């Protein structure tokens, strides 16, 4: 029964990641919808990082960094796209952060995305130089 093809021989009954994926999703939702900037940024980073971690652990990808960069890019693009599509161009300015419910939230998402891209990039470079 357990000799199913495709099932890794490292089949584990424990994984640290699910709790953090869940926590990341919770914090990002609270942060984005309630409009708490730091919670949104950290929540999204935790979510993206845990997704990268859980995918690596379960063997869908070999290294976490590309996933992290990918999630970051997607988030940054969504935020930028929404901002361009729905906000008047004049409102998109650094001075406006903190004003207007939509713009601040989109900035939070974009910042989280950019941080993830940076983390993924740094992680990837450090790994290559250290090995």
């Amino acid at each position, binding site marked *: *029964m*357990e*000799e*199913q093809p495709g*099932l890794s*021989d*490292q*089949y*584990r*009954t*424990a*994984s*640290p*990641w*699910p*709790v*953090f*994926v*869940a*926590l990341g*999703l*919770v*914090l990002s*939702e*609270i942060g984005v*919808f*309630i*409009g*708490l*900037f*730091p*919670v949104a*940024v*950290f*929540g999204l*980073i*935790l979510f993206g990082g845990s997704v990268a*971690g*859980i995918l690596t*652990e*379960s063997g869908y990808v070999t290294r976490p960094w590309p996933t992290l960069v990918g999630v970051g890019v997607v988030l940054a693009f969504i935020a930028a796209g929404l901002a361009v599509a729905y906000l008047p161009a004049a409102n998109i300015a650094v001075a406006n952060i903190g004003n207007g*419910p*939509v713009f601040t939230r989109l900035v939070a998402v974009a910042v989280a995305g950019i941080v993830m891209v940076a983390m993924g990039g740094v992680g990837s470079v450090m790994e290559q130089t250290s090995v």
Partner: protein
Amino acid sequence: MAVGDLLLTGLMAVLLVGIIAALTRIENWRSYTPLAGGGTATGEDGAVLNREKPAGIIRWLTTVDHKDIGLLYGLYAIIAFAVGGIMATLIRVQLVVPGGAILGANAYNSILTSHGITMLFLFGTPIIAAFANYFIPLLIGADDMAFPRINAIAFWLLPPAALLIWAGFFLAPVTENMIEPAQTAWTMYTPLSAEQTNPGVDLMLLGLHLSGVAATMGAINFIATIFTERGDDVNWANLDIFSWTILTQSALILFAFPLLGSALVMLLMDRNLATTFFAVEGGGPLLWQHLFWFFGHPEVYILVLPPMGLVSLILPKFAGRKLFGFKFVVYSTLAIGVLSFGVWAHHMFSTGMDPRLRASFMAVSLAIAIPSAVKTFNWITTMWNGRLRLTSPMLFCIGFVSNFIIGGVTGVFLAAIPVDLVLHDTYYVVGHFHYIVMGAIAFAVFAGIYYWFPVFTGRMYQRTLGKAHFWLSMIGTNITFFAMLALGYLGMPRRYATYEFDGAIAPLAQVSTYHLLATTGAFILLVGQLIFIWNLLQSWLEGPKIEDGDPWNLERDGMLDKEWEWYDRKLETAITDGGEDETESALTDGGVPEGDASRSDDN
């Protein structure tokens, strides 16, 4: 504000550092390779795997084993049941006197809202997931769920969801009532829910959204598991009834919960980002009701189908006969699944919809009564001329059938437009759905807990307490909710914190008497549930250990399902320490006479 932001940023940074630190520490044990020797190849053998799990609380935080997750779901749901039950008691105490006994109107509305949401989303759905997680893989001969990690993620979304839904109660004292618990009722009808400025409503909506995400993830997992992970000898012809109902339920979840999630996001955006989905100048308030009930009615069947499956599975075991018309139950379950998406507007007959539309919703609502009624006849016929053993699980199954008939028949009346227009928004509706939710769903859950208690605890519950629990629940349910049906006929409207109204609306003396009766019944129920919790805890810790893989003596009727075979195997391996799988059938056969001898203590 800046200070607050700074504080939050600091808190988040500390949290992130803490998580990274925790992860790097966990890495140490994470690198073990189970089954590396290749000697013991029993992936589903609990005894062997237990040793490879990390110890203590870390084990429960990191587990992806379906049995552990099932237990976590169970614990979570029981806690939610206790919270919801305490809220119900407060509601009933409040209504002892017409002026309201203990609560102000706002507090009453908060508790009423949270009671409904807690019982449906935090108790009902998770307790079913608890049974499904623990037993579906065992019943269909799978090693685990198809996606064990997604399974764990789905569970871990629930505790934060509960905290968010209850957040107002914790935050109101701290924030000087700036954030209050939501007072929208569980249906969250607009415009009320869109216009209440209380941030507690946002938190509750987020919590609900998360619980919906969790339910959807779980449903995908169950569908994948039942389709792809069945053992070689399990096919569509002999798939057990509980798996069939979970499969149907998961399909309903898959179509219903994402819709709830979208509607909730729309409502959140209406509240926070000035969109107009449910505003009069936009989509209109009635749009919410359509979206909500398009989810809400399937949700009723999401909650009731698996309990029907539990009863269909357990009742025959103590009637000594196979389920009468097994395939009738299967096909009618599927029929309910489909038709449940065509009846939603029967919750909205009094909203002034077009009468032609109302008529067609009534037609489908009457049609959906048939598959449920078919099941009732199947259960009764299964018991007919059977060798009934009135164990606690069996009592709860019979109680289920009895209460389900009352709850179902009252529902058929409500499905008819003329009757509904009279009884809409009265206690009749409350009585009707409580007969289903408490009288049927909770009863089936109790039956399941008692029936499988030996499997997940390795011990037997205390039979006298189990029976006391049944009789108190049965009597309490029928007093409380029958009184509500009567209150509905008297015209008592639902959701009111007080009922000091003019005698022209309803005869106040009778109304107070029935309210008093309902409260009395609620206290009987409360005592019953306290006994249940006590029985659960004490028996888990100190109950007599089960030594035979067939504590219910099902072998005699040839009804020993796979989960008991698994349990027997687990017992054997625990005793012989690493015994080979091949020897188990001989040992099981040898165990029959002993089981027979101890049959009389089964109840």
